């Protein structure tokens, strides 16, 4: 058999033919690949280039520093402090997030609730996101963590900022607090900052009212990121705009003094300038620690705040409404003088009968005040006199006087949550109850009871208007950043000078003439004397049986059934500058509010508060002074 035959030749021919076919196939495949490359790189190249850029470049939001809140002398009431915190980046935690958290927990204290929250946040976020493990660490804790960092993969130290309130609860109602925005907040406000984890917005108080101005504008940083979102380098930055500082008319020291003075009570106290309406102190006790909210308030702490019947979350100065009691008699006296009753004389026997109802004077036990004129009626707070005034004037004239003093309508102060109180009219009662106004209703209203309700701030405005004779409007914000807040010059009051003089004289006698209801707690330092008007408001109906068996002493009643103590005042009596209203809810000892107001007014005057140069920003236009020609 030959080693090579025709079959070798024939298969060589077949091989050659088929190899060339394969070569053609190879060429075809390469053409397809080249065509695909043309399609990807030439036809759609720009599109893919854009996508690659979008992959590579990420926008990071830079939080603008929040504006501070300062008092009239430039003291910081709310500021930003460094927040030492520790975060975890799950994708970098090579030993697992659980063991990383455990390791951190051996260095600093972590509550089970914190651990739970971290694990929850890790599950909710992307693997490259920074999840806070613990915030607001002390420097010691932070330093210890940094020391252990090489052994804690995925754990990073971080320094952010957090809101700080150096005076804590003492400014809590005035300033409010900041907290993370809720879902509802985010729907209302389209600012992209709100969607950023860790961003806080103002809730309550000035923080809420001036939130947008203090928030500032977000900056942006264009960074190159890798596929896990880690920043490789910064490409460019667009600086944000810091939030604007808010300057208040408040005096930090007076505010703190008022808060401390009333710390044991459930109370409110406002001090304002009778000339300008500048609010110098706005206290409401008890308060809460606003620092708790930005750090993260615990359930127990929140529950304690919401269930306390002294309502620590309520700003009583603007959001509490009370029957004004005898302080309302100042408005009655003004209306009496301007309606021809300046010479009214009444004999107080302790009670008066209207129809089949007996109205009592507070001094009914000892036989009443006897012969009373307007001056004595204000000084000694005679109810019978003002029943008679109310009977003669009718509710609508009384209401007009009360409204001229600022009662019955919101004052428009810049603090959210203000209530309007209430001053009834005859038309209102008919519309509301379908019953005509009764003379008896006027009598109750005449001593600040019945339907009459007012906020402590309104009572302060009332005192300021009587003292200064001008329709001042309370204001607490002086400047926002470089912008001085507009101020309307106060209008004139619709009362005669004679009426104002008579009421001021009566109020002077209340505190400075023996027999006055506040005489025992007067200011004795010469030049600082105050004028005032006391008030007591029942929060329950005194039954006939109780009256006959003799009233129980207030101190023996349960706290929430005791009377509210009220006091409005101004000082110095010779040339009034400071007006004050003070309410102590359900006070055990009478006239705690008078003593507090006395101390607060004396403190303000001795500080020479309104004569001290302010620390408001000086504006270019004002600094330049008048031009010389």
């Amino acid at each position: 058999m030959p080693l090579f035959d025709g079959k070798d030749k024939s298969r060589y021919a077949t091989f050659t033919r088929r190899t060339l076919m394969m070569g053609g196939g190879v060429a075809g495949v390469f053409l397809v690949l080249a065509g695909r490359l043309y399609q990807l790189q030439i036809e759609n190249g720009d599109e893919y280039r854009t996508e690659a850029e979008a992959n590579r470049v990420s926008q990071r939001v830079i939080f603008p520093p929040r504006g501070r809140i300062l008092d009239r002398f430039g003291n910081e009431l709310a500021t930003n402090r460094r927040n030492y915190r520790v975060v975890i980046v799950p994708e970098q935690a090579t030993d697992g997030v659980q063991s990383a958290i455990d390791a951190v927990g051996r260095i600093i204290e972590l509550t089970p609730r914190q651990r739970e929250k971290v694990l929850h946040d890790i599950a909710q976020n992307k693997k490259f996101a920074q999840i806070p493990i613990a915030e607001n660490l002390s420097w010691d804790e932070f330093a210890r963590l940094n020391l252990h960092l090489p052994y804690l993969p995925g754990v990073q130290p971080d320094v952010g900022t957090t809101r700080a309130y150096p005076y804590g609860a003492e400014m809590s109602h005035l300033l409010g607090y900041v907290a993370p925005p809720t879902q509802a907040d985010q729907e209302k406000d389209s600012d992209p900052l709100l969607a950023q984890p860790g961003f806080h917005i103002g809730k309550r108080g000035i923080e809420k009212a001036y939130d947008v101005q203090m928030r500032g504008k977000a900056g942006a940083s264009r960074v190159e990121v890798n596929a896990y979102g880690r920043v490789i380098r910064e490409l460019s930055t667009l600086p944000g705009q810091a939030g604007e500082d808010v300057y208040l008319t408040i005096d930090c020291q007076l505010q703190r003094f008022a808060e401390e003075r009333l710390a044991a009570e459930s109370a409110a106290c406002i001090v304002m300038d009778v000339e300008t309406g500048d609010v110098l102190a706005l206290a409401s006790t008890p308060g809460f620690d606003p620092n708790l909210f930005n750090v993260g308030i615990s359930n127990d702490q929140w529950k304690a705040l919401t269930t306390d019947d002294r309502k620590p979350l309520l700003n009583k100065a603007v959001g509490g409404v009370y029957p004004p009691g005898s302080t309302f008699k100042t408005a009655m006296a003004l209306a009496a003088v301007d309606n021809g009753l300046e010479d009214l004389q009444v004999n107080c026997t302790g009670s008066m009968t209207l129809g089949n109802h007996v109205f009592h004077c507070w001094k009914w036990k000892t036989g009443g005040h006897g012969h009373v004129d307007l001056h004595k009626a204000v000084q000694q707070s005679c109810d019978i006199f003002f029943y008679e005034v109310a009977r003669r004037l009718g509710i609508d004239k009384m209401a007009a006087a009360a409204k001229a003093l600022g009662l019955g309508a919101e004052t428009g102060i810049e603090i959210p949550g203000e209530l309007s109180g209430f001053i009834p009219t005859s038309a209102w009662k008919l519309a509301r109850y379908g019953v005509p106004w009764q003379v008896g209703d006027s009598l109750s209203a005449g001593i600040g009871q019945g339907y009459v309700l007012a906020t402590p701030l309104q009572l302060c405005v009332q005192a300021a208007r009587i003292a200064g004779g001008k329709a001042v409007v309370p204001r607490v914000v002086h400047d926002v950043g470089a912008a001085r807040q507009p101020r309307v010059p106060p209008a004139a009051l619709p009362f005669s000078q004679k009426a104002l003089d008579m009421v001021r004289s009566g109020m002077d006698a209340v505190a400075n003439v023996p027999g006055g209801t506040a005489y025992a707690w007067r200011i004795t330092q010469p030049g600082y004397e105050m004028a005032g008007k006391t008030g007591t408001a029942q929060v329950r109906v005194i039954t006939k049986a109780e009256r006959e068996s003799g009233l129980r002493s207030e101190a023996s009643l349960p706290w929430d059934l005791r009377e509210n103590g009220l006091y409005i005042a101004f000082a110095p009596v010779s040339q009034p500058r400071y007006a004050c209203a003070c309410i102590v809810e359900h006070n055990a000892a009478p006239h705690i509010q008078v003593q507090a107001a006395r101390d607060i007014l004396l403190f303000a005057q001795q500080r020479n508060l309104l004569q001290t140069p302010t620390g408001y920003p000086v504006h270019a236009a004002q600094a330049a002074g008048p031009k010389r020609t």
Partner: protein
Amino acid sequence: MISRPYAAARRTLSIVDKLYEVNWGLVLLITIIACVGFAMLYSVAGGSFSPWAGKQMLRFVVGFVLMIVVAMVDIRRWLSLAYPAYIVSLVLLVGVVVAGHVGLGAQRWLALGPIEIQPSELMKIALIMALARFLHGQSVEEVSKPLRLIIPLVMIALPAGLVAIQPNLGTTIILVLDGAALLFLAGLSWWWILPTLGAVVAAVPLAWRFVLHDYQKARVMTFLNPESDALGAGWNITQAKIAIGSGGAAGKGFLQGTQSRLNFLPEKETDFIFTNYGEEFGFVGCIALLILFSVVIGYGIQISMSARSQFARLLSMGITLNFFFYIMINGAMVMGLIPVVGIPMPLISYGGSAMLTVLFGFGLLLSVHVHRQVEIPRHSAGII
């Protein structure tokens, strides 16, 4: 002088003669392509020789020496080693199934002392050698005889089946393609080829139902609609297309690719390395590389046509087509033309086993060229 006397073929060449006969143009091309690979590995490491480029260069040096050594060995020696190599590879594949440890989710590696080898890589060469040897003994008519055809089919099916259960879809496809190509070149009748192609098309739905693993099905599904799961399984395809496409006409420039440097591309140093090349060198660079590849394939075709024995012809074409199938599947995969299968770009992707296998194959190709005048009789009686 078309058929030389058998005796003339027996003369042996000296080493110097053989070195002179080596196709140095092909060797230069291979080296250039490998250098493109080093540059890419340097680039995806962010401009660093570690961890990939340096090692890869070392492997290339080792593989280069291996290639030249293989080229020096007489083609008849390779003929006689074909079956033993096949059997050894088959045993190692069984060993992988029995004792192999799990790497990358699949059993592919076998530890022999300090060396870890991938028997499926060895099998690619061994199968080509063994099939070439078997078909060397068959005339065109004999190839298509049913009883004879069973033998090469079993030779293909055994390793393909063992690799498929690892599971390693990419290598299975390559083995089947290599085997089919050799049968085709050996003259398998169109009466076999066309019905088989028809049956394969008909079998696709059945394979989908009963054969493919879930992860393989997921790859196909995400290939058909990558945007449906752009952050999950569709990520690779989407990001690969973005990388290549963003290169545009001229590319972003060496070391300027962002997609791989910023880790948007998984397996950027292995299966997806071509995307980085496309991003940095653009359409012009890609076409240039395709031209280099086609010249290598052209060399292979030319060498096989000039060989005087059927074994040498089939062996050289088998090696050449094996090289081509890698390029075809990897290229089509990274360009989003076919689903993702784990096949590297030869000479460019990082990987020791693949590099050594490819260079061993080129060694065989060179050996065919060096010994192209050797004639070997069809019948086993004439085989040394």
